[in-house]
C-alpha cells in the first residue's frame, strides 16, 4: 500500500523529534547526577565530611611543603577569608601551581583535611589578561 508522502514525512519528523527529546532528557538527568558540587574551603570546613566535592580555593602563600609521597598545603576562599583548610595531594602538580594561586581540586574531607584525588588538581592559568595586582 503506497504511503502518502506527507504522512511519511510527518512520521519521520515525529520519530526524529522523540529521539531528540529522549536524548535530551538523558543528558539532563545524567548531568545532574554526574556533576560534582563546587565548594569553597569555608563551606567544606562547615559541611559534613565524606562527600566528594570540587573545591575551589586560593592556596595560602608559604603553606606548601612536601609530605610523604605528595604535598600538603592550605587553602582559603577565593575572595580571602581567615579560615584555612588543610589539603593533601599526591601526584604531579600543574605548572602554574604555587602560593597565592586559585586552584580547583576534587576530593573529600577526611578528619578535617581535604584529601585530593590524584590527577584532579588544576591551577588557574594566570596567563592572559592578568589584573594589575596579580601581575
Amino acid at each position, binding site marked *: 500500500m503506497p504511503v502518502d508522502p506527507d504522512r511519511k514525512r510527518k512520521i519521520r519528523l515525529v520519530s526524529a523529534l522523540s529521539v531528540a527529546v529522549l536524548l535530551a532528557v538523558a*543528558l539532563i538527568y545524567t548531568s545532574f547526577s554526574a556533576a560534582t558540587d*563546587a565548594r569553597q574551603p569555608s563551606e567544606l570546613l562547615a559541611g559534613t565530611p565524606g562527600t566528594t566535592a570540587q573545591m575551589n580555593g586560593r592556596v595560602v602563600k608559604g603553606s606548601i611543603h612536601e609530605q610523604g609521597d605528595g604535598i600538603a598545603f592550605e587553602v582559603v576562599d577565593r575572595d580571602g577569608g581567615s579560615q584555612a583548610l588543610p589539603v593533601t595531594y599526591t601526584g604531579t602538580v600543574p605548572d602554574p601551581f604555587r*602560593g597565592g594561586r586559585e586552584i580547583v581540586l576534587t576530593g573529600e574531607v577526611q578528619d578535617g583535611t581535604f584529601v585530593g584525588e590524584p590527577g584532579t588538581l588544576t591551577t588557574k*592559568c594566570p596567563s592572559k*589578561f592578568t589584573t594589575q595586582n596579580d601581575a
Partner: protein
Amino acid sequence: MPSLGSALLALAFFSTFAAASFALLGRNGDRRRIDLSRRLVYAVCGLLTACVVIIELAFLGDDFGFRIVQQHSSIETPTFYKMAAMWSSQEGSLLLWAWVLSIAASAALYSTRNRLRELVPWATAVMMGVAAFFTGLMLFAPDVSPFATLSPAPADGVGLTPLLRHPSMMIHPPMLYSGYVAFTVPFAFAVGALITRRLDSEWIRATRRFALIAWAFLGVGLLLGARWSYTELGWGGYWAWDPVENAALMPWLLGTAFLHSIMVQEKRGMLKVWNACLIVGTFSMALLGTFLVRSGVLQSIHAFGDNTVGPYVLGLIAVVLLGSTALIVSRLDDLRSPKRIDSLVSREAVFLVNNLLLVGLTAVIFWGTFFPLISELFTGTKASLAAPWFDRYTTPLAILLVLFTGIGPLLAWRRVSWASARRVFRVPLAVAAVTLVGLLLFSDAGGKPWALALFVFAAFALSGLAQEFWNGAVARRRLSGGSLPGAMAALVGRNRRRYGGYIVHAGIAVLLIGIAASSSFQTNRDLKLAPGESTVVDGREVTYERPTVRVTDEYLQFGALLSVAEDGGEPVLLRPSRRYFRPTGSGTGLISAYFDGEATSEVGLRAGAGSDLWTAVQPGLGEVQKRVRKADEGFEACLRGAPGTPPQCDVLSGLMRAAAANPALQAPALEQITKLQSLAAERIAGSYLDDDTPATFKVIVDPLVTWMWIGGLIALSGALIALWPSRGRRRGALVRTESDAQKEAKYREIRDAELDHASGKLSDEDFALIDAELRREAVEILDRV
C-alpha cells in the same frame, strides 16, 4: 605616539558609523553612496592597521609609557615574544578583533563590489556595527584602551608570563580570533539577505569562501592550542573540556555543519531556514567564545581576571540573537522551499544527518559548559561536569560522524539507486570488515568497543575516499589520457572544492584515529624514582640516570636524564625538566623567591609514528628548600650584622647602614644584595646534583597520538586546496553578475554529475534522469538571463 593612536582609533570609530550610514542611505541603488561607504570601510581598515603598527612599534621599542607594553613586555623579553605580546593583553585582543574584522569586511566588500547591490548595503551596516562595537569598547569601556599611558614611564616592564613563551603563542591567538571574526562576514550577508528577502543562494556564494577561511583558521587555532597544552602544560593531555576550549570548539562544529548544509541550499534550494539559523548560531557562538574568555563567569583553568568587557559582549550577543530570530521568523514564508529531499540515499540526506549530529554535539558541549550556571539556577550550588561526562556523549556522536564522513562522499546528489549504492559501498565495507577482524585478532582493541568502532568506521571512510580518488582518476584518464598520477592531479585541480573537501574528510578521520587510540590505550604512570633507580612502564624500562641543573639569566632549571629502553633496543634519552623563573625587578627580598617563582615544565618527548613517549618531572626540592631557608636566615642575620656572623658580613651590614642614612646609596646597595642573592641561589641550585633525592615523574605512552597532528595538517591542506581560486578567477575573469554566478554553479553541478557517472557512482539510468533535470534547470536560468 599614544595620543596619535587614540586619535586614529577614534577616527576609525567614526568611520564605522559613516560607512554604515552611507551604505544604508544608498540602499536603493545609489551607486555613489555605496562606493563611498565601501571606501570608508577600507579607511577603517587602514586606520586600525596604523593602530596595530603603533602598538607593535611600542613593543619593539620598549616604550613603557604605553601601559600595555609595560604590563606585557620587558626589556629582556625576546623580540619574538614582544611581537606576540600585543594579544596576550585584553586591550590588544580587542584591537586584534577589530583589525581582523576590518580586513575581512574590506575583502568581502571588494569581492562583491560589482554585484549583490541590494544586499551589500545591509551587510556593510552589520559588519560596521560590529566593528563600531569593538572600537567603541576600546574607546569608552574602562581600562581597555590599548593606548592608555603611564606617567612617568617606568624603566622596565613586567614581562610576558613564561607559560606563554611557546612558539605557537605567535599564531594561536590570531588564528582563533581570525576564525571567530571571519564568521561575521557570512552572518552579515545572511542578515542582508533576510532583510532584502533575497533568499536564494547568492549570499552563500558570496561568503562561502569566508566561512571556509573562518573554519580553517579556527581549526588551526584549536589544534595549536591542543599542541601547546600537550608540550607546555606538563599534564600530558591535549584536551580537557575546559570552558575556553569548548568555546572555540562550538563555533567550529556549527561552522562545519554550516559549510555542509549551504551546499544543499546552493544545489537544491533547500534548508534555507536551517542555514540562516546555523550562521546566526555560529556567529553567536563566536561572540560567546569572546565573552567566555573575558567574563570569568565559568570556572576555567584559564583565569581571565578582568571583568570589564564581559557584560558588553553579552549585550551584543543578546542583540544578535533576538534581532536575528525576529528577522528569521518574519521571513519564514519566503524561506520555505517547495522542494523536498528526493531520497534518503543521497548526499543531501547524509548532509542532513551529519548536520543533526554536529548540532547535537554542540548542544551537548553547550549544556556541559554552562552546566555550572544551570545547576546554580535550579539547585543553588554551582556544580560542574568533568571530562567523563563529556566523553560519554561526545564519543558516540563523533564515531557516528566518522561513519557519515565516509558515506557522504560515496553518494551522489539527488538520488542514487540501490544498485549503484551497492557498487560503491562494496570495497569500503570489505575494508571495514577486514579491519574489524584484524583488530580483534591481532590487537587488544576488542576490549574498547568505542575505539574499535571508530577504527572500523575510519577504515571505511578512508577506503571510500581512496576509492573516490582512484575511480575519478581512472575516469579522467579515460577521457584525456596521460599517466594516472597526472590524471589524479588534473582531477583535483579541476574539482578543487570536491576533492579538497575529501582531503579534509581523510584528515579528520586520521585525526580521530589519533584521538581514539591515544585516549583509549594510553599508559599514564606517576613514578617516584631516585637517581639510578629504574622501573618498567608498559614494557619499557625507565631509568632515572642522574639529576641535571641548568642556570641561565632567566631561570634555574632542575631536570632529569631518563633513559628508556624498549625490550633490548637502543635506549632513548629524554630530558624532562622544570624551570623556575627568576624574580624580575630589583630588591626581590628573599633567596626563596628564586624557587617560588613562575615554574614551567619542559617536557621530555619522543614522538613516533607508533607511539609518543612523554615524560615530565617534578624535581624533589625538599633538601634544596631547606638550604634556601637556612641561607635566607643567614643572609638576614648577616645584613643586620648580628653577632657571630662571618667577617665578610661586616661589609654588607656597613653598606646597609650607609644606605639607610643616604638614599642615593640605596639603589647600588640593593643591586649588590640582589647580585649576592642570585649567586647564593645559583650555588644552592647546583647542590641539587649531589642530593640523591627522589623525583616524581609522569610517564605517558601515547599510541598513535602523532596522527592527530598529522590528520590536522592533512585537513588543513584539504581546506587550502578547496580555497585556492580557480584558474578563471586567477586570470581576473571575475564573476560579474548574479545570473552569471548561478549559471556557473549549475554548469559545475552538471560537470559533477558527469564525473559521478564516469567514475561509476551513478548508474546510466540515474545519470540520465539527473542530467535531464539539471539541464532543464540550466535552461531556466538562461531563459531568465
